[in-house]
């Protein structure tokens, strides 16, 4: 350890560290523009210059790359330092008068109007982009080119880079927003779609899967993380102050002996693009109910605003299509049991958000099975102006004009006429299917599945949660379509059955 003083404050520091690191660790602020904890110090912006007294000699040095030494005295804001920084900022503001970061920094040093010839650049040539590309990504798709007045950030030969992998680290690290990926590569960066937001938003390669995740810690998506793909990057490691990043963690298989097993593997959503006539994935403004849920959620990607995919406009005429894949001889024969109610809720919510919005629900049969469910439907019709149309639409097409409005083609069953309705957006209430993991578990436990891939319950009447094997119980959607209250009831039942079973064993 080395002893030094910064602005009169005695501090200890590890040998080999730089003044800036030590100052920051001691909550002493030194301005910089070209420093990044994940990169080697560069010493180009010179803003972090401090005045040191070393072996009796006063000197101006850049704190980002001056190694600490025993007895060093550092002044981060001496008169000479402040004066120099002010001039540097005045020069930078003349170069980049419209960059907010520079404006703010200059202002904090009392510089608002430079006395120099003004330019209009966005790039301060801090080199963070080129350095991160070289040092961390290991690609060097961009670098400095030219020198002196001609210096700029560029790709070799000023043409689109072939080696750029479009990771966007340069854009991410640029403090002034000067880097545009389209200038560097003709590759379109593909966002990592957020599973939780049903693909409407994107997420980073390191992320918390969803707000209620247990345990609530970030995970690294190894399939897209640059480090796991190329061995480079490791920027998160430098950014995490807690030092929590661990690239070596592996999935672990823990073997435990148990007395009873309760299966509760839940459901997945049926892929609506397989119901080809509804055009999901082709007709731009056809979305799924799950996407709609994320959109209307205040914590979702649009913060509760309905924005249709084609142009971001708020749809004022909304169609919900029921039984997309359910009760369909080509897909799933069973009724998914919850869609009538969630579509009704969603239509009501839309109207609550936008009182002028009109919602139409195209249904096969109204299955409002449950206490006061029918009254809920009635309220939707009366108070929220939801229109129920008894029909299974035959197809959905797109009006190429009119902002790509979807057109719902259907038979008005009450009058037996074929007709169509142009709406702003369509929500598909797709079928629910047993979760993909149910199959694996059933194989592992030698349990059989029924025709619809649900866990087989031999005696549904008297033992509604008992599987074929004693001591193994199943509850919730993995054994049959049901809503949340029913699943909770079954869960309690399964717990009781398991307790009963284990006490008998003893």
């Amino acid at each position, binding site marked *: 350890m080395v002893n030094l003083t910064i602005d009169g404050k005695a501090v200890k520091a590890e040998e080999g560290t730089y003044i800036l690191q030590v100052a920051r660790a001691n909550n002493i602020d030194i301005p910089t523009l070209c420093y990044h904890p994940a990169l080697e110090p560069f010493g180009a912006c010179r803003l972090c210059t401090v005045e040191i007294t070393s072996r009796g000699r006063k000197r101006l040095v850049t704190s980002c790359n001056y190694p600490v030494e025993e007895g060093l005295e550092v002044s981060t804001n001496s008169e000479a330092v402040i004066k*120099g920084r002010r*001039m*540097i900022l005045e020069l930078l503001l003349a170069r980049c008068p419209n960059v907010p970061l520079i404006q703010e920094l200059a202002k904090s040093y009392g510089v608002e109007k430079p006395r120099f010839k003004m330019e209009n650049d966005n790039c301060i040539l801090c080199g963070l982009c080129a350095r991160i590309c070289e040092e961390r990504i290991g690609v060097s798709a961009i670098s400095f080119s030219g020198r002196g*007045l001609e210096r700029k950030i560029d790709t070799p030969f000023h043409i689109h880079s072939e080696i750029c992998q479009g990771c966007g680290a340069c854009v991410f690290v640029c403090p002034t927003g000067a880097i545009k990926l389209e200038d560097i590569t003709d590759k379109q960066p593909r966002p990592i779609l957020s599973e939780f937001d049903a693909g409407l938003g994107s997420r980073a390669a390191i992320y918390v899967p969803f707000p209620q995740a247990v345990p609530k810690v970030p995970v690294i998506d190894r399939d897209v993380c640059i480090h796991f793909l190329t061995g480079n990057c490791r920027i998160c490691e430098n950014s995490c102050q807690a030092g929590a990043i661990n690239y070596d963690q592996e999935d672990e298989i823990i073997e435990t002996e148990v007395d009873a097993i309760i299966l509760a593997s839940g459901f997945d959503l049926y892929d609506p693009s397989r119901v080809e006539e509804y055009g999901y994935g082709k007709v731009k403004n056809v979305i799924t109910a799950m996407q709609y849920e994320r959109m209307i959620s205040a914590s979702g990607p649009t913060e509760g605003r309905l924005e249709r995919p084609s142009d971001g406009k708020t749809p004022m005429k909304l169609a919900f299509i029921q039984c997309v894949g359910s009760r369909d001889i080509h897909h799933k024969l069973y009724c998914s049991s919850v869609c009538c109610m969630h579509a009704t809720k969603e239509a009501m919510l839309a109207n609550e958000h936008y009182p002028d919005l009109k919602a139409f629900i195209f249904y096969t049969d109204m299955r409002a099975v449950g206490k006061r469910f029918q009254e809920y439907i009635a309220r939707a019709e009366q108070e929220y102006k939801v229109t129920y149309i008894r029909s299974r639409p035959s197809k959905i097409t797109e009006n190429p004009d009119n902002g790509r409005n979807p057109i719902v083609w259907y038979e008005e069953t009450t009058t037996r006429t074929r007709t169509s309705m142009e709406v702003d957006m369509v929500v598909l209430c797709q079928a629910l299917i047993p979760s993909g993991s149910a199959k694996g578990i059933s194989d592992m436990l030698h349990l059989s599945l029924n025709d619809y891939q649900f866990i087989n319950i031999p005696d549904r009447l008297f033992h509604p949660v008992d599987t074929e094997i004693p001591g193994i119980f199943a509850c919730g959607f993995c054994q049959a379509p049901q809503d949340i209250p029913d699943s909770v009831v079954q869960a309690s039942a399964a717990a009781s059955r398991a307790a009963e079973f284990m006490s008998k064993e003893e």
Partner: protein
Amino acid sequence: MPRINSPAELEELRKGILSNRDPNRPCITLCSGTACHASGSEEVAASIEEEIKKQGLSAEVDFRKTGCHGFCERGPIVVIHPEGICYLQIEPKDIPEIISQTIKEKKVIERLLYTDPTTNKKIVHESEIPFYKNQERLVFGSNGKIDPKSIDDYLALGGYSALAKVLSQMPPEQVLEEVKKSNLRGRGGGGFPTGRKWEECRNAPGEIRYVIVNADEGDPGAYMDRSLLEGNPHSVLEGLIIGAYAIGSHEGYIYVRQEYPFAVENVDIAIKQAEEYGLLGKNILGSGFDFTVKVHRGAGAFVSGESSALMTALEGRVGEPRPKYIHTVIKGVWDKPSNLNNVETWATVPLIINKGADWFRGIGTEGSKGTKIFSLVGKVNNTGLVEVPMGMTLREIIFNIGGGIRDGKKFKAVQTGGPSGGVIPEKYIDLPIDFDELTKAGSMMGSGGMIVMDEDTCMVDTARYFLNFLAHESCGKCVPCREGIKQMLNILTDITEGRGEKGDIELLEEVAAMVKDFSLCALGATAPNPVLSTLQYFRDEYVAHIEQKRCPAHVCKPLISYYIDPEKCQACMICLRQCPVGAISGGKNQIHVIDQAKCTKCNTCFEVCPPRFSAVRRLSGEPVPPPVKDRVLVRRKG
């Protein structure tokens, strides 16, 4: 080629070479340095070879193409040995006469000799020409005697004897001590004591050490390193090997500009020859010391001459300086201890070894020992490379060696130290030149550029010129240097174009102070020097430009106008005919008038107006008088 295995064998070889050479045999040497090459020495060489053959003298006369002699103003230079007869500005047509008269008949051709401008006497011998007479050519002197492509020529003059001496008689520590004792300071610009640098590098932790020759000379108008490397590459190599031995390095680099093709060629040949003779490679002269050297060609960036930038470039990266808080002698190329010295510094080392540190200390001033090669250019009569002992005054260099100012003009200032040096005004003409005095005067030694300026030089424009160079040659890495120089250049451009404002001088000083203290490398730290030193000595010129919109030297075009004095104009039609844009009206018997709107200020009329009339005047800071109305008829005076 026989490999030389010991100092004794080297001595034997040298004796062998000398015994084959008759000192009385006629030898024609022709300067083939870059400057003479540009003046046509290649054609001269061809005609010498042809003429020797033609006159049947091939067996009796030697011909040698040497490196730069230094007197580039008067090239191509031919010296006839053993007499030392020196002919200047030789063309191929002079050759038959030289061969038949001087070689055969031993007659001196008067018209090809140097004429002393003061006494008007013809001077026969090179050594008597004032340009040479007043120099002390220790390092540069051999250039004119040897063919740089011939290691035998170098050996004949005692070459590699210093290397033989250190390898056989001196342990590395003793070499270090000798160099330290000599007080040799780096010739590249900084003037850091060479011995101390070597010692720090030797003591730096690590197994691998590098030694580097900095031949990335980039100052406009400076070419001493070029000429030395071109003309006497072995002297640089010998110094480098000695240094490597003292430092404990086994690998060296010569970083030379790609734009110096002769230097690259000659040093490549020299390395090959030295390798064949066993003066490079494994077990040099049987001493057990190994050393190899590679040539790295630089891509022409001025900033790559800065040591850390050069090392970055050597690593194959863009030549940009890096912080030197940890010195390059400890962490240089590839983070290994690296000792970099300038061409001239390395070439001085063999002399110190051969003649001793005490001898070397006897030359020069208290703080700066030895000699220094300057590139004397600008408005001086004898431009060229001059080597003088440290401490010689500017007056001696400019007037005794340089032959004074051209066209009888008045000396105004001299710019030393390259673009980031400073100007020294006339009042310091008796300043003894050494590292410390130049720094005290607000300039620096730099690598030894010396640009002489006469009274027709505008100092604001000079500052602008150098800043323009630096703005383009700054690497652009750090903000103070890149943005600071650019904005100072903007201000200077405004001043020279008549847009100067009150407060500009103060703003220049403010920026300069910051650039000096906050820049990353020495290039940035010294970049404000042209501004600061011209402000220090010629502040009134700045004030005249800004306040009166007047350029006292009549250089800044936007601030001057050309005017024909109607009292003096004799309507001779010369300027009228010569004006490239037809801006002059008039005719026979009609006083000429310049149309100010058309005039491009090309200076032609001023130059062509017969001196006996001197009717064309340059005005600055004052309005151009309206053309005379009625007096369009010429008044002929007797």
